[in-house]
Structure formats: C-alpha cells, structure tokens
C-alpha cells in the first residue's frame, strides 16, 4: 500500500508543479545543435565536380551528370532516401555541399523529394546557424585529411 501511495504522490507532484517538457511545435521550435544534419545546401560556385560525394554516398542519393568535358550539368539529390549520414559533406574538398539545420521539409509524392541544384541552393539555413563556422574546429578529423592515398578523380 505504501508503494502505491508513493507512486500516487509522485504523479500528483508532477501534475501540480505545472511544468511541462514538451514544446508547442511549430510555434516554439525545438533547439537544434549547431552540428545537426538536415537538408543539404549546395553551392554551385564552389563545386569542382569531383564526384567524391556521389561515390561515398552509401545509398546513391546523389546523382551527378556531367557533359563530355567533365563540366557539371546536373546535381540531383533524392532527398527522400537520404539517411543524413553527412559523409558527402565530409568528403567534399571545397565545402560545396553542407547539411543545414533545416529539418522542415515536406512533399506530397516521392518525386517531389528529388531536389536539383537550384532547389538545393535555396535551402534556407535554420535559425541563422552557419554550419560551416560551427564545424570548422573539427574539420581536420574528417575524411580525406588522413594520410594514405587520396583519390581525387
């Protein structure tokens, strides 16, 4: 009986203190850490079309089409199948692709989840967090900085 009463006391205490730990989304947006990995942002100006991101992506989310002179024509991201592992960002030698803090994106059909380079460019940062800044201190640990053969194509 004591145990039951203790349990009831605990719940009552919680009920009366009026504290809540859920937030009223979307009015109150949850905090995301600066390292958070959301939808990609792609910078066409920076990209050198080395295709490393395409190679490293574990599930073929990134599709790059080049013309015969190896100039980039298309950069498509099948965002619906992305697992946000962030390996593409890690391998990119010029920071052309970055995962933003933005996790709010929706679509009606699977096909709407294919973003081309223009759409990727227009992905907004989330709450003005600049991931590049927040990531800089750790960049030397990322893939590609280690010794050994580096296979830029």
């Amino acid at each position, binding site marked *: 009986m004591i*145990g*039951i009463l203790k349990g009831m006391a605990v*719940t009552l205490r919680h009920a009366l203190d009026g504290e809540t730990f859920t937030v009223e989304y979307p009015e109150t947006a949850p905090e995301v850490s600066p390292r*958070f990995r959301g939808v990609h942002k792609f910078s066409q100006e920076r990209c050198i079309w080395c295709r490393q991101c395409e190679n490293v992506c*574990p599930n073929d989310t990134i599709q790059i089409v080049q013309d015969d002179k190896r100039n980039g024509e298309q950069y498509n991201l099948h965002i619906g199948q992305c697992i946000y592992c962030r*390996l593409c960002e890690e391998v990119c030698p010029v920071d052309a692709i970055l995962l933003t803090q933005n996790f709010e994106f929706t679509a009606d059909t699977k096909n709407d989840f294919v973003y081309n380079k223009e759409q990727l460019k227009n992905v907004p940062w989330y709450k003005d967090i600049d991931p590049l800044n927040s990531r800089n201190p750790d960049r030397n*640990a990322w893939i*590609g900085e280690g010794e050994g053969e580096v296979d830029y194509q």
Partner: protein
Amino acid sequence: MPTSKDNPVSQSAEPVFRTADWHEREAYDLVGIQYEDHPDLRRILLPDTWQGHPLGLDYDQDRPQIATLREHANPLEGDHRSAGDSNTMYINIGPHHPATHGVLHVETVVDGEQVVDLDSDIGYLHRCEEQMCQQGTYRHQIMPYPDRWDYISAGLLNEWAYARTAEDLADIEVPEYAQIIRTMGAELCRIASHMIALGTFALDVYGDFTAIFMYAMRDREIVQNILEDLTGQRMMFNYFRLGGVVWDLPEPREEFFEKIRDFIDELPQALEEYHDMITSNEILQARTVGTGVLPPEVAKSYGATGPVARGSGIDYDLRRDDSYGYYDELDWDVVVEDGCDNFSRLLVRMREVEESAKIIQQCVDLLEDWPEDERNIQANVPRTLKPEEDTEIYRAVEGAKGELGIYIRADGTDKPARFKIRSPCFSNLQTLPEMSEGEYIPDMIASLGSLDIVLGEVDR
C-alpha cells in the same frame, strides 16, 4: 561448421544449444544451408513463399519473386486453424498489437487466459542489413547502418561493434582520447536505451501511455540532447569512424561538460522517482516477481545476453570480460540480479543506469583534464581499406541489449564478402516461449517487455 558449396548440409547443433534453432533457421533462410536433424527448418526472416536464398553466392537478384495466389494465401491462416483440443484457442498477438514493440507476430495458443504454446513469427522488419553492409566500403559506407539495427538510441553502441571488428581486422590503433569519448558516448546511449526499456516495460504493465512512460522519455530527452550536441543527430548518430570519432567534443567544452554533469547530478533523484513509482509499487511487484522466470541454464542454452542474462544471475558483461575501449581503466561494476524474473530484469536495467552514470562521470573528469595538444580524435587511416583475402574476424561488444557481434570475411576488395550480425535481441527473443508457457497473457506481454527487444535488431 563449414560445408561445401555443392552440397550445403550441416549437422544441427540444436540438441546441444537451443539457440542454434533460430540461428540455423536464419542460415538456411538467407544462405541456404541445410541442417540435418533440425527439428523445424523453416524460413525465419523471409516470407514462406520466398524463392532462393538471397545471401547465397548463386542467388539471382533479378529473378522475379513469383508466388501463386494459392501459396500466398492469408498469412494469418492459422486464425481459422481448428485446434484438435477444443479447450484451447488460437490467437494472433500481433503483427499489429499495442504491446509487441514493433511488428512482431506471436502465434499463441491459449487455454482460457493461459498460454499453452507460443511461436514468434519475425521478419516483418527485415531489411537485409547484412547485405547492405556487404555492399558498402569498409572505410565509410558501413558506419551509418549500425545505427539502424537497434534504433532505439543505442546507435553508438552498435557503431562500436562495427568499429571494433573492422579496426581489429585492419590493425588500426585508436587514440586513447577517442576511446574515452567513445566510452562516454556509448554509456550515454546505454542510459537512453535503458530509459526507454523502462518506460515501455511500465507501459506494458500499467496499460496506458501514462506518467511513468513520460517521465522516462523526459529523462531520455536530456540524454538525447547531449548526444545531439556531441554527434549532430538524435538517433542516427554516425559518429564513430574507423580509428576514432569524427568530431571532438563541442565547443565551448565547459558548457558541454556542465550539461553532462547536471544530468548526472539529477539522475539519482530521477531514479528515486522511478523507484517510488515502479519498483516499490506492490501491484507491480505482484505482477513481476516470479513471473517470466528464466533459469540461468535455460538462458545460457538460448544464448541470452545482456540485461536478460544478468537478470538471471549470469555474471557476463563483455565490457569487463572482453574489455575494449576504456572500460578496464575505469571503476564500475557489473550488475547481476538472481531473481531470474521480470522484476530482476527491470532492476538490472535500473542499476545499470547508475553504473553507466558512474562511467560517464569518470570519462568527463578525464576529458576535462586532457592536455589540449594531445586531443587526438582519429588515427591515420588509409582512405581505402582492403583487408587480405580470406581473413575472418568476429568481435563483439556489449550493446544495450546484450552481446552484439559482427563477423566479417574479407575477400581482398574494399567491401566485405560476408557480413554477419549476431544480434542480441534475436537470441533473447528466442527465450520467450520458455518464459511464458503456462503463464497468463498479461505475463507473456510483461515478459516480452522485459526482454526489451527492438524489432529492427531482431529482423535486421
């Protein structure tokens, strides 16, 4: 036991260890090995109508799977099965049932409310994770996937299983600093995972998404925020890399340490609340003490590990018995309870949270004083790893649910030739009939909850 490719027949180990039952069925299902004298060699993960054995070398990926309508008859056909004994009733618990923690189908025969016979039908969440890993490169592409086996925030523990295996395979030495970060992260994951185990177990016994579940979620939320700061993601961390971790602790470090310290300081109070609400509650004790009994010999025979084994008085913890990471340098204890019942499994988890907190505390102390120029978070690892042909390796770590092992056979390329996951949940779930036959349906549900399975890891 190796067999030839032309005549893949082996001898069943089922009479020696009961756990061989499911493991051999899995090998038959995926690879196509026949076992002599196996009591019940059926498919386990794939549907019964599947043709071919997908991980066999001669499997043709492109061959369409054609099952005739007759063969594909209602998979829940058993529903209309007329039991010879008219006193019993056949019930499908699951695949969609509030208490199966995912899509698990338990074919149950009940006599009144007592379970007479029980057979778990798994594979609804089978994604062929082993094959996905076989198609990924060692260096990068496999690491994101372990997060998705036991996806209930045990990600770092799973990643460690792969990291440990591949690092031993390729002789990579992990810097000490990275090992401490790994240890800390892994224990945070363990806390998060045990919290949800606690919450859902209470949910199974209490009956509604009520207070105790919410409190467990609230505390898990704090852990998840810490992990998000550390890894950048809340559940699918992808934080380990071969040879270390990908990110150093977030700046400003003091703030991060402060956050962890706050959590550790508040934890005893939260646990006190749990004890008030759960373990000291007489009704809960009546429900859990002496139900779902799993004697140690049976647990061993079924290959049960983790909190399930430790709740049956088996003193086995890979963190101590096959030490890795930084565990052997730290001061902590393996938690063992002798009750063998649902209650002691619950207690083991609650006490393990305390032990994990102890470990994290020590890691934080170490990390805080670590000299700034020795913060080496990753060893130098070549961009492509090509282990020599025909090297084999099996390594295991103590995951949230038990021994999570990985077997890799290399074939000289940059991708594994065979990648086998020994999932703790798979073996633990196998003990369910032992625990619940003869018990009431509610106790069966409670036992299932106390096993703390994650279907993502059972089915892989």
